[in-house]
């Protein structure tokens, strides 16, 4: 390939020399013509640049000196003389000789090159030949890890013209993310009002914490093209974590610091219980704070209002801070599974490799603790049912070693934890047949693939032909489902028959706080999770009439089935003229919830309803509003699921009667009694 380039350069350089020659001859006639000087300069410049690029370093170095002289001619710092023209013509011949030598035709008289350059120095009065920086290609920058991982706080506010200048700031963030774990906070505070907004300007800034072993230069290097026109600070926030094997500093003992070592007080151990207490207290504080702002808003007192706003800001900061203390990386959990996979592999005579991705993703400690069991079940299942024996794998044309891939990543307010294997996958027909056999569904039931896969989470379901030591007793998957739903999460299954199975758990970052939308129905308040909410539109009586009694609304051309909360909870307050419909994304598609009024954002601390109500599925908790009243936090997935189930049951069985499948306040008591009997 390089020879190709060299050949191309040979041809090109000869053309350029001819161009140089003709320019020089013209210049001899027309010595003041800067245009012609420019032509000669460009020819020399290109010979130098391309020469250096394709390995003709001697030519590049030689041409560089000539180029410098012509640059001065071009800028009028030097006058064109007959001597200079003659010398440059001779230099052109010398370059041609160098090209010949490189092509294997004859040898070059180096002393002649020296003579020409010495003469050039005399004519132009430049003291010494300039070192040619361009001749040596700069060594590729070393981006190898610079030691143990550190945290870097990076603030990046690109210049307003960054987009016009062709830079996509997101690519830079992505490059940063490739260096290690990256937490990004967007600062959108500089976005002006719509009237003043210039769509081509960039108003955003990002505050990031990067955990990486890469050196500071590698981080700065990413911003090399924009660093002059942006606000950029990169600072190390935490010294490298002390090596676990290093002897701990003795209490009271003296540690010798060389000024670079880790700060001995960089972390302290606190019991989880005390952290929980802290979060509970912060929760109470948030509630009281909400009341304070409400009261302050009602009193027309600037001082009180100001104090209330200050407390508001502090509370928000405190809440965020105490939440982040509870966040832990999934690493420890993931690492434990290596042993599990190893031991199970021996027991089952299977060769399985565990690969892990995103282990530094952080989740609330409570979520992590409760995630362990479901993950163990999923991995066991993959090992037992998914991955085949080495012989079977070879026969199927696969690598004899199976792979289980554990990954975690953020997705909005959720974390996606994925367990995938490259085993035999799930066969929808087999699952279906087994479900019929076990009496879970009717033989003639028509189910979509997702619904069939959902059957494996039914209590008592098992596809294993025989019960093995590891799994297949028909317990397991329903436990997984219950645990995940207990975490307000959801499960998604994707199967590639013969090629593997991927199970995705979608989990909230934290259990203690929810970003919600506060809505009102009659005099009752509810909170719907903001993460699933798509939009809010009005539902007028006319639209209801147009749908001919069906609970379907037309939202921007999309037909959206809806549930009227007033009916669902059997509230007898009067329906207002205009209702509002909140469109929510659920696993069953887009659904609407009809309420009287959407009151707005409500970030809130979740209070558990207590053991008495633990069987009420559609309510995931409660919160106390500023005025002291209670709002129930609804689980849209469960609401829709109940509605869908009652619909299909309505279709399937004849014994269905109005209200029997509804869960309202009356129904709640029933459930509680049932719960008691079960205990």
């Amino acid at each position: 390939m390089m020879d190709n380039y060299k050949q191309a350069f040979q041809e090109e350089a000869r053309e350029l020399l001819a161009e140089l020659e003709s320019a020089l001859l013209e210049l001899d006639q027309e010595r003041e013509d800067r245009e012609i000087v420019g032509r000669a300069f460009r020819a020399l410049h290109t010979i130098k640049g391309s020469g250096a690029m394709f390995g003709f370093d001697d030519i590049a170095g030689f041409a560089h000196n000539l180029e410098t002289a012509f640059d001065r001619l071009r800028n009028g710092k030097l006058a064109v003389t007959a001597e200079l023209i003659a010398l440059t013509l001779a230099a052109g011949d010398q370059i041609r000789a160098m090209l010949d030598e490189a092509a294997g035709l004859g040898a070059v008289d180096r002393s002649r090159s020296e003579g020409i350059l010495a003469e050039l120095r005399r004519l132009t009065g430049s003291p010494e030949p300039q070192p040619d920086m361009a001749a040596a290609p700069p060594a590729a920058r070393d981006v190898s890890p610079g030691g143990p991982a550190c945290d870097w706080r990076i603030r990046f506010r690109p210049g307003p013209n960054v987009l016009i200048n062709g830079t996509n700031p997101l690519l830079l963030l992505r490059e940063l993310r490739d260096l290690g774990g990256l937490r990004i906070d967007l600062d959108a505070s500089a976005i002006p009002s719509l009237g003043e907004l210039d769509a081509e300007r960039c108003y955003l800034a990002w505050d990031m914490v990067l955990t990486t072993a890469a050196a500071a230069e590698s981080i700065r290097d990413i911003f090399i093209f924009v660093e002059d026109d942006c606000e950029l600070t990169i600072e190390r926030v935490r010294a490298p974590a002390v090596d676990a094997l290093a002897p701990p500093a003795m209490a009271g003992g003296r540690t010798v610091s060389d000024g670079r070592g880790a700060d001995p007080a960089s972390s302290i151990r606190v019991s989880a219980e005390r952290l929980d207490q802290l979060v509970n207290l912060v929760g109470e504080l948030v509630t009281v704070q909400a009341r304070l702002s409400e009261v302050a808003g009602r009193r027309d007192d600037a001082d009180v209002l100001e104090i209330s706003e200050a407390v508001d800001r502090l509370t928000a900061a405190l809440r965020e801070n105490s939440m982040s203390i509870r966040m832990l990386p999934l690493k420890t959990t993931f690492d434990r599974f290596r042993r599990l996979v190893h031991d199970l592999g021996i027991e089952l005579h299977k060769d399985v490799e565990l690969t892990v991705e995103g282990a530094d993703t952080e989740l609330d400690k409570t979520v992590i603790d409760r995630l362990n069991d479901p993950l163990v079940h999923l991995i066991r299942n993959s090992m037992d049912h998914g991955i085949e024996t080495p012989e079977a794998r070879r026969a199927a044309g696969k690598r004899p070693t199976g792979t289980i891939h554990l990954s975690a990543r953020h997705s909005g307010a959720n974390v996606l934890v994925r367990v995938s294997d490259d085993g035999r996958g799930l066969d929808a027909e087999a699952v279906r047949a087994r479900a019929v056999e076990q009496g879970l569904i009717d033989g003639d039931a028509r189910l979509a693939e997702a619904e069939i896969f959902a059957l494996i989470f039914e209590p008592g379901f098992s596809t294993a032909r025989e019960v093995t030591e590891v799994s297949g007793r028909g317990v397991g998957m329903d436990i997984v489902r219950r645990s995940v739903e207990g975490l307000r999460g959801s499960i998604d299954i994707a199967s590639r028959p013969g090629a593997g199975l991927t199970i995705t758990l979608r989990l909230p970052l934290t259990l203690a706080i929810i970003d919600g939308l506060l809505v009102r129905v009659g005099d009752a308040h509810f909170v719907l999770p903001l993460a699933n909410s798509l939009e809010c539109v009005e539902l007028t009586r006319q639209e209801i009439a147009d749908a001919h009694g069906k609970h379907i609304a037309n939202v921007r051309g999309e037909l959206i089935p809806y549930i009227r909360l007033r009916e669902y909870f059997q509230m007898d307050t009067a329906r207002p003229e205009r209702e509002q419909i909140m469109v929510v994304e659920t696993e069953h598609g887009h659904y609407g919830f009809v309420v009287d009024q959407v009151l707005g954002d409500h970030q809130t601390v979740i209070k558990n309803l207590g053991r008495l109500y633990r069987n009420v599925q559609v309510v995931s908790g409660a919160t106390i509003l500023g005025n002291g009243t209670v709002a129930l936090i609804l689980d849209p997935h469960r609401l829709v699921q109940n509605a869908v189930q009652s619909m299909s049951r309505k279709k399937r069985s004849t014994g269905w009667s109005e209200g029997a499948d509804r869960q309202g306040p009356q129904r709640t008591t029933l459930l509680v009694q049932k719960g008691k009997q079960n205990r």
Partner: protein
Amino acid sequence: MAKVILTVDDSASVRQMVRFTLSDAGYTVIEAVDGRDALTKLGKPVHLVITDLNMPNLDGIGLIRSVRAIPACRGIPIVMLTTESQEARKLEGKAAGATGWIVKPFATQQLLAVVKRVLG
């Protein structure tokens, strides 16, 4: 769809190197011999322009200024090819709205790294 890269250089060998390197990496490469020629190639979608600075007719800086003034093209990333001795020209190019630069001589990996940084 492969991304389209326009290489602008009066040196055929540099254009060839850029073309070979980038088409091997899966990009579609079109060529222009100088700034004026480059402007005629911008009628069709181009995702990245790699331009030399010293060229007849319209030089690299002039090309950058022109592209940034055309509403339909102004956000196109433009990478300039400079040499160590052209620090002043590089600053001029940045002021004109260049997205980035590559210092000549460069190896194919350096070219690919910069293209990846700018195009994603």
